[in-house]
């Protein structure tokens, strides 16, 4: 494969969010009201976080139905045990932890990973279960197909690589927060993200090559 060595190649991929600042938690007031018994405050928290939780669970579990069930379970768990949240980290970190936990738990319960991946591939092949955001006009068919492949390849990564990758590259959390969510050293998080990206790249090699041929840069 011939690839041009240009400026595009040395462009950086920056973090998408600033570092964590647990001192100023934007949810502090809502949490205080909820802890004081105001259920409306919890409902607001649910509405504020449902997108993030659902996205993470969708990428972790691979199907819309599982992601919805797990999202509900996440918030129920949060409600059951939220009084234990002591404000040592941001509430968003706590929510991600509960969601990550729910995802891992659910995958364990469901077991049968291989069967699920096959089922997922089958559903994807028939056009089900894909995110419904409409593609932009500039988006090529090949790119859409690639996204399908990426989603599928993601499902084949082991949890320990997939979780940090999803939190960092898809959810856009900074390293420090991923490290907080997973309780791992930052160096370990970086190393796993890199390994996960490499694994994905290897799995997507033919598609990436086709993409490079389609739009040489």
């Amino acid at each position, binding site marked *: 494969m011939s690839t041009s*060595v240009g400026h595009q190649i040395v462009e950086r991929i920056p973090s998408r969010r600033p570092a964590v600042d647990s001192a100023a938690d934007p949810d502090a007031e809502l949490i205080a009201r909820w802890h004081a018994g105001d259920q409306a405050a919890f409902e607001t928290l649910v509405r504020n976080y449902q997108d993030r939780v659902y996205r993470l669970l969708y990428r972790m579990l691979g199907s819309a139905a599982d992601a919805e069930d797990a999202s509900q379970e996440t918030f129920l768990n949060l409600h059951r045990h939220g009084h234990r949240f002591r404000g040592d*980290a941001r509430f968003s970190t706590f929510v991600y932890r509960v969601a990550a936990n729910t995802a891992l738990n659910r995958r364990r319960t469901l077991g049968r990973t291989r069967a699920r991946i096959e089922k997922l591939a089958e559903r994807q092949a028939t056009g089900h279960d894909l995110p419904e955001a409409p593609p932009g006009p500039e988006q090529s068919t090949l790119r859409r197909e690639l996204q399908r492949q990426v989603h599928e390849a993601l499902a084949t990564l082991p949890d320990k690589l997939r979780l940090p990758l999803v939190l960092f590259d898809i959810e856009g959390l900074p390293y420090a927060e991923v490290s907080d969510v997973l309780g791992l050293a930052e160096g370990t998080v970086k190393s796993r993200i890199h390994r996960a990206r490499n694994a994905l790249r290897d799995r997507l090699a033919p598609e990436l090559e086709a993409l490079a041929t389609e739009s040489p840069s």
Partner: protein
Amino acid sequence: MNHPEVRRRMGEYLQGDLPLAQRALFDAHLDGCEACAADLHALRETVHLLRDLPSPEVPPHLADRIVARIEDGEGRARWWDGLAAFWDWIDPARYLPPLAAASLTSAVLIVGVRDYGWQIPGTLPPASVEQADGFVDSGRLEEAPDLRMQPRLRPPGRAVTASDAAEEPARRMRVLGAAPAAQPAAALESAAALELVEEADVIDDPHLFLERYRALQEERRAAWLAQMAERAARGRKVEAVARRLREDAGPEGRALAEQFEAVAYPAGR
């Protein structure tokens, strides 16, 4: 900079974490190496594809359903959550002498398995407590082995401390359903000791290996090396570990490779 180093540091490069001098060397290598440039290009494309994945549409009534379930009482703590919290609170391995803790833990596990099976809530103490607490479930040893060493009751965001490290092996034994071995706290006083469980990463990554080694107190290094050598031997990785240390971790890595081999091959193989 050579090929292996360029490939290993691509992540840092993409993230802009590479020091300026290293970055210049990296760029120089890229200018003359089409293979590495293509590799980097593919990696960057992969990241872009990931980040460009369209967001899944959240089911429109998700929040309403959650709120309805909470109103129906499903959001209340269940009786076994209380038991789990109580178990966590009494924490037998911490407060009772190790032998008594072992007996109590084993007795409860045996009775739990005999009469109720593993699944009864409350008899599977640390894993379910942690899950309830919002921590990554340490009980998932098979699916996410590297997440299993979450110190119990560590508040979100708090760094791992020496006491967490000291407590961990006994807790791990409890999760596995075995009696907790007596662990002298002094033997695990360094927080770095906790990282021993990351053996797969450490063994596979020469830089991490070197980093861990450096972080240890001098008198603990030999024991740590012996432990790593034993793990590497189990996975038939001794040669690979030594080679990576030699090739990728600079002069210090080469010196460490010698020591590692001396420990791994005591008979001078």
